C-alpha cells in the first residue's frame, strides 16, 4: 500500500530508504507576497533519526517548519507521514497526526500557568469536554516536565518564569503529545549549557522510541554532536542532504554561506600589550536578588567578555550601567567621572555609552520603520536645526552607515522588518556607531544571526575596539566569547565567580565557573 502511494510521486529521486521514511516533504514551494521563500524543497526523516536543518537566516528554515507543522499551507507540494498525506494548514490536525513543532519563539501564554500552557488547545475534559479535568492536567504536566529533567513552578504564570524555563514549557507542550515527529526550531538559543544538555537527554529518549527529530540550530557544534543527517537550505532552495559523518564543519559552513569563510576570523585574540587608560569602573554594584557587589573595570580598546548562564544577572548589569534600571548601591565611573545618582539613559548616552539589547526585535528596532529612521533614531538631535530635521544630512549619514556596516538593503527607506536577522543586528549596532560612543554594552550581539553575518559583526566589534572604544560583550555563545574577549568575567547567580584573560580561557573553565556550586538553578 505504501509502495503504491509512493510510486505515484516519483519525481524526486527515491533512495531505497525513502520507502521507510517516517516523514516525507516533497517539492514544497511557498512565497510571501512577491518573494519566493521556498522553492522545490524536499526532505525526508526516518524513524529515530536526528535530522538537522541548516541555513543562514532567511534561507527558509522557519517557513519550511511552519508548513510541515501546519501553520501555513504551502503554495505547492505535499507532506506525508508514513505515506498518509498530512492535512495542510491545520495545526491542530497535524498535531493529532503526530507532528509537533517547537517554534523559535517560545509558544507560551505569559498569563497562564505552566499546566494550562502545556495543555492549551487539547485539554482533557470530562462530560464531552464541558468539564476540565484539572487533576489529570496537573498530573500530566508534572510528568512531562519531569521527563525533561526540569523543575518548574507549575502554578505560577509562565510570564514570571525565566526565558529558559519558558522555552522548557514550550518544549514540554510539544512532548505531551505522543508524537512521531518532533520539530525543534532553535530550541537552545536561550538555554544555558546545562539546560541544553538535559534537553538533549530528553530528545535522545524520544529518539530511542523511534521519534523522528527535525532540528534547526545555528550552533554547529550541537549539530555535529547530535545529528545523524543534515539538510542545508540556501535562499529557499535545497543545497543538499548529507550524513553528518561524511562532512566537515567547513564544508557545512561553505554550503550554508555559499563561499568559504575567512579562516583568520577563528583566531584567538592576542594578549594586549600596552596598558590603556581605564574607561569604565564599576564598584559595588548591587540590586537585591539580581546582582551583588559587582566590581570591574574596562580599559579603552578592551573587549571584556561577560559570561554565565542565562539569568545570572548579565543583562541586568548592562541595563543598570546604561541607566535603564535602578540599582540599590554601587557607583559607576566613566572616564574618571562618576555617574550621577539615579541617572537616566540619555545621561548615559550623552557620556558616550551605547547598549545593544538582547531582544533585537522588541528592544532594538522599530520594525515597521525604515532602515534610515532606525539608524538615526538615537542621534536625531544631531540632525535637528532651527526649522526641523535636516533631511539631507540625515539621509547622507544613513547611507554612510549602511555602507560602513555593510547592511544589505534595497534602499534606506525600506522597512527594517524586510531585512534578515543579521542585517537587522547590524542596524542596531550601526545606530550607535554614528554617535561614536566610547563604551559599547553588547548583549548577545549575534543571537539568531547566521554564520556569515556573525563573522561580519565580529569583525565590526574588533574594529570598534581597535579604534579605542571599550566593549562589554555579553554572550551565551561560548566560541564567540572565547574568540573576541581580551578578558572574561564569569557571573554566577549575580556574583562574579571568576576572571581570566582571553588568551588563557578555556570553555571548560568558564562553564565550571558559570554553574552554581551546590544546588542547581536557584531560581
Amino acid at each position, binding site marked *: 500500500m505504501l509502495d503504491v502511494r509512493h510510486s505515484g510521486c516519483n519525481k524526486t529521486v527515491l533512495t531505497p530508504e525513502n520507502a521507510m521514511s517516517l516523514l516525507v516533504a516533497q517539492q514544497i514551494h511557498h512565497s510571501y*507576497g512577491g518573494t519566493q521563500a521556498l522553492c522545490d524543497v524536499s526532505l525526508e526523516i526516518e524513524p529515530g533519526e536526528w535530522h538537522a536543518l541548516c541555513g543562514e537566516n532567511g534561507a527558509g528554515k522557519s517557513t519550511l517548519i511552519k508548513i510541515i507543522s501546519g501553520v501555513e499551507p504551502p503554495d505547492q507540494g505535499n507532506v506525508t507521514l508514513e505515506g498518509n498525506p498530512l492535512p495542510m494548514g491545520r495545526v491542530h490536525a497535524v498535531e493529532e497526526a503526530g507532528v509537533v513543532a517547537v517554534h523559535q519563539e517560545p509558544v507560551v501564554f505569559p498569563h497562564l500557568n505552566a499546566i494550562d500552557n502545556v495543555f492549551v488547545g487539547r485539554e482533557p475534559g470530562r462530560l464531552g469536554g464541558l468539564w476540565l479535568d484539572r487533576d489529570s492536567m496537573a498530573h500530566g504536566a508534572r510528568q512531562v516536565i519531569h521527563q525533561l529533567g526540569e523543575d518548574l513552578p507549575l502554578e505560577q504564570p509562565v510570564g514570571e518564569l525565566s526565558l529558559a524555563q519558558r522555552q522548557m514549557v514550550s518544549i514540554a507542550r510539544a512532548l505531551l503529545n505522543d508524537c512521531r515527529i518532533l520539530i525543534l526550531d532553535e530550541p537552545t538559543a536561550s538555554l544555558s549549557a546545562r539546560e541544553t544538555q538535559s534537553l538533549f537527554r530528553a530528545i535522545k529518549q524520544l529518539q530511542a522510541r523511534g521519534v523522528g527529530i527535525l532540528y534547526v540550530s545555528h550552533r554547529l557544534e550541537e549539530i555535529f554532536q547530535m545529528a545523524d543527517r543534515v539538510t542545508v537550505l540556501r535562499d529557499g532552495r535545497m543545497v543538499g542532504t548529507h550524513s553528518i559523518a561524511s562532512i566537515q564543519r567547513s564544508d557545512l559552513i561553505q554550503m550554508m554561506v555559499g563561499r568559504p569563510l575567512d579562516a583568520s576570523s577563528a583566531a584567538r585574540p592576542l594578549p594586549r600589550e600596552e596598558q590603556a587608560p581605564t574607561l569604565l569602573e564599576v564598584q559595588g554594584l548591587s540590586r537585591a536578588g539580581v546582582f551583588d557587589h559587582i566590581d570591574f573595570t574596562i580599559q579603552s580598546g578592551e573587549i571584556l567578555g561577560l559570561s554565565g548562564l542565562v539569568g545570572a544577572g548579565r543583562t541586568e548589569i548592562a541595563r543598570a550601567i546604561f541607566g535603564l534600571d535602578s540599582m540599590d548601591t554601587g557607583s559607576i565611573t566613566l572616564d574618571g567621572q562618576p555617574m550621577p545618582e539615579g541617572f537616566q539613559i540619555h545621561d*548615559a548616552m550623552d557620556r558616550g555609552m551605547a547598549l545593544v539589547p538582547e531582544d533585537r526585535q*522588541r528592544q*532594538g528596532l*522599530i520594525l515597521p520603520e525604515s532602515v534610515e529612521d532606525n539608524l538615526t*533614531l*538615537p542621534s536625531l538631535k544631531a*540632525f535637528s536645526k532651527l526649522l*526641523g530635521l535636516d533631511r539631507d544630512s540625515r539621509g547622507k549619514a544613513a547611507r554612510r552607515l549602511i555602507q560602513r556596516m555593510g547592511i544589505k538593503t534595497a534602499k534606506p527607506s525600506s522597512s527594517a522588518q524586510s531585512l534578515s536577522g543579521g542585517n537587522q543586528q547590524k542596524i542596531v549596532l550601526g545606530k550607535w556607531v554614528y554617535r561614536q560612543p566610547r563604551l559599547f554594552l553588547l548583549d548577545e550581539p549575534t543571537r539568531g544571526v547566521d554564520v556569515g553575518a556573525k563573522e561580519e559583526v565580529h569583525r565590526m566589534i574588533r574594529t570598534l575596539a581597535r579604534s579605542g572604544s571599550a566593549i562589554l560583550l555579553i554572550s551565551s555563545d561560548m566560541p564567540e566569547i572565547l574568540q573576541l574577549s581580551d578578558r572574561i568575567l564569569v557571573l554566577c547567580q549575580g556574583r562574579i565567580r571568576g576572571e581570566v584573560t582571553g588568551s588563557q580561557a578555556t570553555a571548560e573553565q568558564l562553564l565550571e565557573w558559570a554553574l552554581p556550586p551546590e544546588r542547581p538553578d536557584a531560581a
Partner: protein
Amino acid sequence: MKARLPSWLMNPESLLIGLGMAFWLIMGKLDHSFLQWEVQQELSTHIWETALMALPMTLIILTGGIDLSIGSIMSLSAVTAGLLHQAGWPMPMGCLAAMVVGMACGWFNGWFITRFKVHPLMITLASMAAFRGIAEGVSQARPLSGFPESFTRMGNDVWLGLPIAGWIFAGSLAMAAWIMHAHRLGRCIHAIGYNEQAARFSGLRVDRMLLGLYTLSGLSAAMAAILFMARRNTAKADIGAGVELGVITAVVMGGVSIFGGRGTLAGVCLGLFLIHETREFVSWHWSRDELNLLALGVLLILSVVFQQLLGHKRAS
C-alpha cells in the same frame, strides 16, 4: 495580484478622498444649495473645536495612547474662565487661566500615565468623570454668560473667508504638521507608537514626551473651550459632553491605527472633513437627527472595513 493599483491609490488617505468625492457628487445631485460657499463657511463653525482637539489626539493615538478626558477638560477650563470673568478678571486673563487649567489637567493625566504605568484608557476614563465633576462643583452647575462683545466677536468673525476659529486650527495644523514631518519629535512619536520599548532603548525620553503630549491635549481642549464660549457666549459644566467620541471617531476614520505608529495628519483632516460634511448634510437634507447617528456609525464602520481590505490586499 495581476492588475495592481498604484501604491498612491492604496492608502487610507486616497480612500477617504474617494469617499469624499463620492459624497460631494451625491450632495451635488441631491441638494446643490448645500455646496454654496457661504453655507459651507458658516457650517464649518461646527467642526473647528473638534478639529483642534483632534490634532493632539492624533499624536496621542500615534503613540498608542488615548485621551478620553478632553470633553471634561473643556468644561473645567470654560468654567474657570467664566468664573474668573464673573469675579472681574479681564477676559484675556481669564482665557489664559483657562489654558493653564487645561494644561494642568492634561499634565495630571500624563503624570499618572507615566508615573504609574497605567493604561491611558483607564486613567482618562477616571479623570473624565473627575474633571467634569470638579467643573460642576466649582460652578454649582450654573451657566456663566454675559461675556464682553470683544470676546464673543472672536467666535463669529470671519477673516479672509475663514472664521477665526478656522485660522486658529490652520495655525495649529501647520504646527502639528511641522512637528510630525519636519521635527525630530515626529519621528519619535511614530517610534514610540510602533515600539515603546525599543524607543526607550534608543534613548528617547518617552515619559517626557508623553507628558508633553497629554499636556498639549489639555491645552487644545482649553482652547476649544474658549472658542466654544466665544461662539455660544456661555460657559457651563456640561459643555463638551461626548466630544471625545467625535474626536476619536475622526482620528480613527482618518486611518490612524488605534494601536499606534501608523497614521498621518492628512488622513485625520480628511476624516474630520468627511464626518463634518456627512453630519451636516444628513440633517440639511433629511432633517432627521436619528438618521444622522445611523449614517455616522455606518460610515465609520464601512470606512474602516475598506481600509482594512485595502491594507490586506497590500500586505499579501
